[in-house]
């Protein structure tokens, strides 16, 4: 049957099994919206209040489900507003397909109303992008976009659709392609068997090994394989910020997060290790600290689907390119075939050393009677939700505390902006998570700075009745900026003080939600409980916290992993 471009767009989404799309209408996408509205029985369109939020919401949806997140925005400012979200998804390898409207083909390049070259603008921050030049190309392009976004190292793919392709004046035969063949794109999932054998040798020989695992484990759905491998060998596991939940935090083999605000034991174990097994992690500068001082005595195995991640920052001894899930399964099989077992004595000694480091108790905090400490709030949230909530975070001190004190036992539950560090990510991403998991508890941990960067989304939350638990750790500062200024700029607090904060309680109420301000430590638990128990209403909990609190431990920029500031 011959269909219009707009109809082909909708039918293609249905063929991809898209059930939710986040967006904001505008001139160039009106034909698409006209058809989307008719397809409301199959595809829920969620109207955000700013295009950046559409992308973050799609990211939350994708990160919590491992499905492709989908968003649609109009041309010009709609597209440019989406760029921050797209860059965020690019750095965190989030599978997204983003549709942007474009001016009619005849006007492209004429500086038409609401025209920008969004293909040019987003080229460095997408996995790939397409400008649809003919109606016949539309369905195959959508097929390719979903394929590229979700395979290999996932990432955002943008499709720019000129308005006249969707207007229905021209129609074409619609058949959604069953297969996609891109000659220049064939991700390699299976690890090289020889490299896997070498990795098995190294694992069995190691005396002080550590598994350093990242977001790739979660993206690949390989938590159970990772857990099996770790338990088989009884080796310690540390997660990156993006990898939290891939290995159960309550497991005694878990030594905590590593990196700039990682635990003492995780960073010391990395520093003293003789074998680092990097799995779906990318040796980010926030993890390695000073690269010259990074893991001086370790042999390095690196498993990653992206060859370009290997030996980019740190030279690797045994690279394995492949999908983490498949490589780990093959590695487990290989180890099962071997008669050798890891050196038991060395293992016991290694654990004794690690347990000595653990005694530092680097995450201890004191909750006095006067001021609420942020750590206490997160700790309580963890207790009350039994470590089982979806936790979305904004960016700053609260993000680090959430990572340190909410002990994730399951993957896909910790949703944050790790690579780009986008303030404003928390609330919209939480909307995406709640829409994907309507019956689950979703918390948005934020601060008085971050929350104001996408505060308008409180309206979206009302429209779709999303009972989020917004936990604002309000210290009246841009806390992480203030902390750096305290440490490295002789306490010159340039512009890090949030003067003229709004009354968040009234603000929440103005948007039709419940707002509570909590100043007394004794009221923390009650307020959290009330919010969590209420499955109908969004709660904005404005916790007035200690303004001078810092995130510890901390590896200052340029220092080695063993040079931590503990308190």
């Amino acid at each position: 049957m011959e269909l219009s471009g707009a109809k082909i767009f909708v039918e293609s989404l249905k063929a991809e099994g898209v059930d939710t799309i986040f967006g904001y209408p505008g001139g160039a996408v009106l034909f698409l919206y006209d058809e989307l509205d008719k397809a409301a029985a199959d595809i829920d369109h969620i109207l955000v209040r700013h295009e950046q939020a559409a992308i973050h919401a799609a990211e939350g949806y994708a990160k919590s489900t491992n499905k492709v997140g989908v968003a649609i925005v109009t041309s010009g400012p709609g597209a440019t507003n989406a760029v921050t979200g797209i860059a965020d998804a690019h750095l965190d390898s989030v599978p997204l397909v983003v549709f942007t409207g474009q001016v009619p083909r005849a006007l492209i390049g004429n500086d038409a109303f609401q025209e920008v070259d969004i293909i040019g603008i987003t080229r460095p921050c997408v996995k790939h992008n397409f400008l649809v030049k003919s109606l016949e190309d539309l369905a195959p392009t959508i097929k390719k976009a979903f394929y590229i976004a979700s395979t290999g190292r996932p990432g955002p793919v943008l499709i720019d659709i000129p308005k006249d392709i969707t207007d229905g004046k021209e129609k074409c035969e619609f058949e959604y392609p069953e297969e996609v063949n891109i000659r220049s794109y064939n991700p390699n999932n299976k690890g090289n068997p020889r490299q896997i054998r070498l990795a098995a040798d190294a694992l069995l020989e190691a005396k002080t090994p550590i598994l350093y695992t990242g977001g790739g484990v979660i993206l690949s759905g390989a938590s159970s394989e990772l857990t099996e491998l770790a338990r088989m060998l009884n080796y310690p596991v540390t997660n990156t910020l993006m990898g939290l939940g891939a290995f159960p935090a309550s497991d005694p083999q878990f030594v905590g997060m590593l990196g700039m605000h990682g635990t003492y034991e995780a960073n010391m174990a990395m520093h003293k290790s003789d074998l680092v097994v990097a799995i779906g992690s990318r040796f980010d500068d926030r993890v390695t600290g000073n690269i010259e001082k990074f893991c001086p005595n370790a042999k390095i195995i690196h498993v990653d689907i992206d060859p370009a991640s290997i030996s980019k920052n740190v030279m690797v001894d045994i690279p394995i390119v492949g999908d983490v899930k498949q490589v780990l399964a093959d590695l487990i099989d290989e180890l099962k075939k071997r008669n050798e077992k890891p050196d038991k004595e060395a293992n016991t000694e290694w654990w004794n050393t690690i347990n000595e480091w653990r005694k530092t108790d680097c995450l201890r905090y004191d909750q006095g009677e006067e001021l609420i400490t942020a750590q206490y709030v997160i700790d309580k949230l963890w207790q009350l939700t039994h470590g089982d909530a979806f936790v979305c975070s904004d960016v700053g001190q609260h993000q680090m505390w959430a990572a340190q004190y909410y002990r994730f036992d399951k993957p896909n539950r910790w949703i944050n902006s790790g690579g780009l560090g986008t303030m404003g990510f928390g609330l919209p991403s939480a909307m995406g998570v709640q829409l994907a998991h309507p019956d689950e508890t979703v918390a948005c941990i934020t601060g008085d700075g971050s929350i104001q960067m996408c505060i308008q989304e409180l309206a979206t939350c009302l429209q779709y009745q999303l009972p989020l638990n917004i936990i604002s750790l309000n210290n009246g500062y841009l806390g992480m900026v203030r902390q750096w200024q305290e440490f490295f700029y002789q306490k010159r607090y340039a512009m890090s003080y949030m003067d003229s904060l709004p009354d968040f309680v009234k603000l929440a109420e103005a948007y039709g939600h419940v707002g509570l301000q909590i100043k007394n430590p004794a009221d923390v638990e009650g307020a959290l409980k009330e919010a969590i128990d209420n499955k109908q209403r969004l709660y904005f909990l404005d916790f007035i916290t200690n303004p001078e609190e810092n995130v510890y431990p901390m590896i200052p920029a340029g220092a080695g992993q063993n040079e931590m500031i503990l308190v």
Partner: protein
Amino acid sequence: MENESGALSRVVGLFSARGYNIESLSVAPTDDDSLSRLTLVTSGSEQIIEQIIKQLNKLIEIVKVSDLSDFKYIEREMMLLKVEAKHTDAITSIKQVADIFRGKIIDLSNKTFTIEVSGQGEKLDAFLEAMQDQIIIEVVRSGCIGIARGSNSLKI
């Protein structure tokens, strides 16, 4: 790479975004009109070159990447040079130098000669050096192209 608009821009963008150096760049369609061949000259440590190749391979429109310096290879570049040729001694000298470098005079006016020379980049540098006594009006170089010797090939 795919012979599509935007493909070249991705390559050039990658080099500038990641701080890699482009010494020369030459690109044109091949016998297969769905493909373009791009020859790029760059420099860097082994690790940087490895990273450049990996990053190029990540671009969806790049079909195949080959480091020609892994093989024995032939390298060519073409230069067109316009010089002032008003006086007899200059004309004689220009002709002599052009002959030595196997250059061809391909255009002339009553005031100028235009010479075509091709070869390795170093040869062109040497030719330019030899022409320094003349009044050079314009120089245009094509950038390097290259191909592996023998049966090695970059066939898709």
